[in-house]
C-alpha cells in the first residue's frame, strides 16, 4: 500500500527550526527561497498587523524587542509559576503574563497570545517553505520535541501543529529522530548514544539499532540546559566587564542588553573555529545625558571555557543517569552522535570525547539530522512498505497523587510504550458519586516536586456504601508518549465518564479560535 502522500518532518527548535521530507526514498532538508536551511524560531509582529517569522524576524529583535518573540519553546506547556517562566519574565524583552488555569500568555501590541499560537506561526512558516519547494499543499507532519518533554509540553506542541493547520501524525523525541537519520538504511547492528545539546534543552538517549529496528533503551535530560545558557554566561560576563570599565549598568537598558545578547551568541559561535574572539559593539549604550558608549574586548577560549564548563559538566551528570538507568556503562556503546548547534564547539566535542572515550561520529549535520529523522518517521508511518521501525520509551515516571501531598509510581520512566497499567480503587464515602484523581509526571515522591498533568473526575458508576464500589482506572501511555486515563466499574462493566479539569493547556474552543487567527494571519 505504498502511497505518495507527503509528510514533512519538522525540528521545532528553541532557537532554530528545520524542515525535511522524503525524496526518492532519502530524507532531504528543504531550504527557503533564499537557500537558508534552518530558520530562526522567532516571530515578530509588525505594526501594520502583518507577522514576520524566521531569520528576518530575528533581525527585528534589536529594533522591536517588545514585539518579537523568541525561545517560545522554553515556555510552551508550562505553568506561570514554573521556574522557567519566572526566569523568562526576568530576562525576556517581551511581556509574559498569566493566562487561564495558570497558563502563560505573551502580550504583544495589546493582544494576548498563547505559546502554542506562537509556535504555530513558526510551524506555518515551515509548512509554507515545504509547500513552495514541493509545489503542493502539505497537511501531514511529524514534529520533534526534546525527549525529556513532559505530557503537557507534548500536548501543547501538538496543539501548535493543529493551529498551524497540520495533521500531526506523531510527536517524536529529538535524539530518537537523530538516531533514525543516522541508522536509516544502513543495516546496522550497534548501540549508540545521542548527545543532544540544543538551544534550550539537553537530552541523552541510548539506543539499540538492529537492522531497521530502533529501540530506545534509556533517556534522560534537562529541560533547563542549552546553548542559550552559554550565551547568557557570556552576556553576564560582558555586562559585568562594561560595568567595571564604565561604572554604568547596561542591564537596565533593554536595547543594549539585546545587542549584547546577539553579540554573545556570535561570540560563542566564533569559538567553534577561533581561539580568541574580538568583540566590538559600537554605540552599545546611550545614557540619558547623551553620553555614547562603545563596548570593546577580546576574550580567549580559556575564559570562555571557564565561563561555561559547569554547564557542560551538568550534561554529563545527566548522561550518568541514563547509563545507570539502562544498566550500562559508557564502554557499552559503539558510537556517539552529536546533535544541536552548540555541539560544534570544541569545548563540547572535547568533553564528549573525554567522557565517552571515543571520537564522536562524523558526517552528521547537527542542525539538520533531527528534521531528517522526523521525515523518515513520517514516511514510515504512511508507507506500509517501509521497514524502519521505532520502539520508544516514556522519559518520566507517571504518578498518582495520594494523601498528604505524596504520590505513587504508576509507570516507571524508561518504560517502553505503548503500555497500560490498571489500578483498582474503592469508594471511601457512602453514596460517593465521584472519584477524583490527580496525575503527575516526575521523579519525586512529593506531589509539588513533579509536574501536574491533570485532575480527572470520574462519575456515573453505582452509588452504594463506602468500600462497595470498585473503580478500575487504566493509565495508558500511547506511542506518541501522550498519557490517557480511563475508568470503569468492573462489576457492571460500565465505563465512567471523565472530565479533565487541567492544566495550562488550551481548550478545544481556544484551539479553533487560534486556528482561524493563524490561518488568516498575513506573513510578511
Amino acid at each position, binding site marked *: 500500500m505504498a502511497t505518495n502522500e507527503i509528510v514533512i518532518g519538522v525540528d521545532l527548535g528553541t532557537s532554530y527550526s528545520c524542515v525535511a521530507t522524503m525524496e526518492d526514498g532519502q530524507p532531504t532538508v528543504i531550504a527557503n527561497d533564499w537557500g537558508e536551511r534552518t530558520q530562526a524560531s522567532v516571530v515578530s509582529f509588525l505594526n501594520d498587523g502583518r507577522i514576520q517569522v524566521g531569520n528576518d524576524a530575528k533581525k527585528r529583535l534589536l529594533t522591536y524587542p517588545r514585539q518579537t518573540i523568541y525561545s517560545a519553546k522554553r515556555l510552551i506547556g508550562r505553568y506561570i509559576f514554573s521556574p522557567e517562566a519566572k526566569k523568562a519574565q526576568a530576562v525576556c524583552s517581551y511581556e509574559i503574563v498569566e493566562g487561564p488555569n495558570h497558563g502563560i500568555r505573551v502580550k504583544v501590541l495589546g493582544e494576548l497570545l498563547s505559546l502554542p499560537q506562537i509556535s504555530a506561526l513558526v510551524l506555518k512558516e515551515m509548512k509554507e517553505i515545504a509547500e513552495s519547494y514541493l509545489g503542493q499543499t502539505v497537511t501531514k507532519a511529524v514534529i520533534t520535541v526534546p525527549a525529556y518533554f513532559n505530557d503537557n509540553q507534548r500536548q501543547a506542541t501538538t496543539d501548535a501543529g493543529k493551529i498551524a493547520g497540520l495533521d500531526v501524525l506523531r510527536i517524536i523525541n529529538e535524539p530518537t529522530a537523530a538516531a533514525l537519520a543516522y541508522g536509516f538504511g544502513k543495516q546496522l547492528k550497534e548501540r549508540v548514544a545521542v548527545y543532544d545539546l540544543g538551544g534550550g534543552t539537553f537530552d541523552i538517549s541510548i539506543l539499540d539499532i538492529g537492522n531497521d529496528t530502533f529501540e530506545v533503551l534509556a533517556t534522560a535530560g534537562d529541560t533547563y540546559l542549552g546553548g542559550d545558557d552559554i550565551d547568557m554566561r557570556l552576556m553576564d560576563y560582558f555586562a559585568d566587564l562594561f560595568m567595571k570599565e564604565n561604572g554604568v549598568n547596561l542591564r537596565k537598558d533593554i536595547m543594549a542588553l539585546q545587542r549584547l545578547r546577539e553579540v554573545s551568541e556570535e561570540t560563542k559561535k566564533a569559538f567553534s573555529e577561533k581561539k580568541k574572539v574580538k568583540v566590538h559593539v559600537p554605540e552599545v549604550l546611550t545614557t540619558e545625558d547623551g553620553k555614547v558608549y562603545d563596548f570593546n574586548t577580546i576574550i580567549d577560549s580559556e575564559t570562555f571555557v571557564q565561563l561555561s564548563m559547569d554547564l557542560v559538566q551538568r550534561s554529563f551528570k545527566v548522561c550518568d543517569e541514563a547509563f545507570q538507568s539502562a544498566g550500562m556503562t559508557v564502554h557499552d556503546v559503539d558510537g556517539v552522535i552529536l546533535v544541536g548547534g552548540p555541539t560544534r564547539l570544541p569545548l563540547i566535542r572535547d568533553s564528549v570525547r573525554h567522557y565517552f572515550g571515543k571520537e564522536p561520529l562524523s558526517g552528521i549535520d547537527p542542525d539538520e539530522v533531527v528534521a531528517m529523522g522526523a521525515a523518515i518517521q513520517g514516511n514510515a508511518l*504512511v508507507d506500509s512498505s517501509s521497514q524502519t521501525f521505532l520502539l520508544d520509551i516514556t522519559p518520566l515516571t507517571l504518578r498518582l497523587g495520594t494523601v498528604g501531598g505524596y504520590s505513587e509510581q504508576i509507570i516507571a520512566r524508561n*518504560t517502553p510504550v505503548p503500555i497500560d497499567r490498571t489500578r483498582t480503587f474503592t469508594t471511601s464515602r457512602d453514596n460517593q458519586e465521584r472519584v477524583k484523581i490527580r496525575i503527575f509526571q516526575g521523579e519525586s515522591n512529593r506531589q509539588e516536586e513533579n509536574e501536574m498533568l491533570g485532575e480527572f473526575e470520574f462519575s456515573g458508576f453505582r452509588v452504594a456504601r463506602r468500600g462497595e464500589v470498585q473503580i478500575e482506572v487504566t493509565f495508558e501511555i500511547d*506511542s506518541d508518549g501522550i498519557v490517557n486515563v480511563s475508568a470503569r466499574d468492573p462489576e457492571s462493566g460500565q465505563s465512567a465518564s471523565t472530565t479533565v479539569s487541567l492544566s495550562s493547556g488550551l481548550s478545544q474552543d481556544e484551539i479553533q479560535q487560534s486556528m482561524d487567527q493563524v490561518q488568516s494571519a498575513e506573513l510578511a
Partner: protein
Amino acid sequence: MDSKFAERINAWVKALDRIDYYQVLQVDPHASMGQIREAYHKQSRLFHPDRYFHLDQGELKDGIYKISKRVTEAYVTLRDAQKRSHYDRQLVENKRTKLRYTEQSELQQKKAKVEQTGKTEKGRQLFRQGMAEMKRADFVAAERTFKMAMAYESDNELFKQKAEEARNNIKTDYKIK
C-alpha cells in the same frame, strides 16, 4: 489487509487473557535475556500500532493496539531479572490463574520480605544484629542472637535457618567440651 489477518488479530485478542508473558512473546520459559529482546522486536514488528498506522480507526486497530501493549508489558516484566522471578513464582503459586504481573504483587512480595526478617520490633532488631555478627565472622555471637530472635518469633523459618548457618560456621576447635 486481508480477512485472514483480521482473523489472526482477533484470535490473539481473544487469547490474551489466557496466555502468559512467555506465550505473548512466543518464547520458551527458559529463554535468555537476548532471546527475550529479540522476541520483543519480532512481536512488535508484527503488532506495533505504527506498523498499521494507515488502517482506519476501528475494531481491528484497537485489537492491534491491545496486543501491542501486552507485548510491551511482557517485555518490561521479563527483561528485569527480579520481576521475572517474581512473575514465575506468581504463575506457580496461582496455578496459572493470574497471568499478568502487577505492581501490587510486587508490593505483596515486599511485605512478605519484611515479615521474613521479623514480625516484631525485637525480632527484626536481633536479626539485624545477628547479620552484622555474621559479617564480622563472629559466629558464636550470631548463633546466640538468632536463637534469641527465635524466642520472640518461634515460627520464623529465616531465623532458624540463619541460626543453623551460624552454628555450621563455628569452627570445632573453638568449642569447649
